């Protein structure tokens, strides 16, 4: 069993992956936001989950006009910290990101849901079948994209 970290040790640990990040902020005492580009998301997630290690909570997919974002939320329970990694996907035409399910099976379903509703191609996913949309839902229509909602 690993020793619990204190706040400084957690921050030191997180700073080891700094060169893959594009930003980091802490708006609240126990809330940390890290950002990175989609190409580095796999590596940063693997670091957060296996090296820190943090507990994976959930991921969120967002369509924010100029790009897509996937937010990976992690918790560090001994300190009640929530660490969110924002991965930016700049290519709106063919959005894609590396799957984290190969080393983190709990992310499998949320990645399938993000694939269904936002149409982000999750590369190297073990089982990218339809999860939340109806069986007769047309291919290529992504209900949570902003252009669909106009």
């Amino acid at each position, binding site marked *: 069993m690993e020793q619990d970290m204190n706040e400084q040790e957690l921050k030191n640990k997180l700073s080891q992956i700094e060169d893959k990040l594009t930003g980091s902020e802490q708006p609240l005492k126990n809330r940390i936001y890290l950002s990175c580009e989609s190409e580095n998301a796999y590596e940063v997630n693997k670091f957060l989950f296996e090296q820190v290690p943090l507990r994976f909570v959930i991921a969120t997919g967002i369509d924010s006009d100029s790009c897509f974002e996937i937010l990976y939320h992690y918790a560090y329970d001994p300190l009640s910290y929530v660490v969110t990694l924002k991965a930016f996907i700049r290519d709106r035409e063919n959005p894609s990101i590396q799957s984290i399910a190969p080393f983190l099976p709990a992310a499998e379903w949320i990645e399938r849901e993000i694939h269904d509703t936002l149409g982000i191609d999750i590369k190297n996913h073990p089982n990218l079948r339809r999860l939340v*949309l*109806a*069986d*007769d*839902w047309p291919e290529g229509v992504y*209900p949570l994209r902003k252009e*669909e909602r106009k």
Partner: protein
Amino acid sequence: MKKSPWVFHVNTGACNNCDIEIVDLLTPRCDVERLGVKLVGSPRHADALLVTGIGTRQAMPRLLEVYRQTPKPCVVFLIGACACGTGIFKDAYHGAGPIDNVLKQEDPNAIIAYVPGCPPKPEAMISGVVKALSTL
């Protein structure tokens, strides 16, 4: 229809809150089985359907299939704000309702009773059942 209505419960995309209240009907506080209202496991045994949820695109064909298999005459109770008129999910991309419109297209003579609420109290459901059965 005046004696002991047997009911079948259909969830068409509800958040489970109405469903819990339906189960609450059977617990000792309300205990609707003393009034002859019995939850059954097959629509073919039912006199009434208790429908919850907005009627999603995936669930609507199943609901219609259940309705076709229910012996007529049967009463369809729409339980909760979502079933009565899609509620806060109006214009949701995945909704195929409102349920009453779709049921009327399937069977223009469908007998539909509405029990609104989010979720409706068990007392409201009992009152709805009594009112519906006494008007038939």
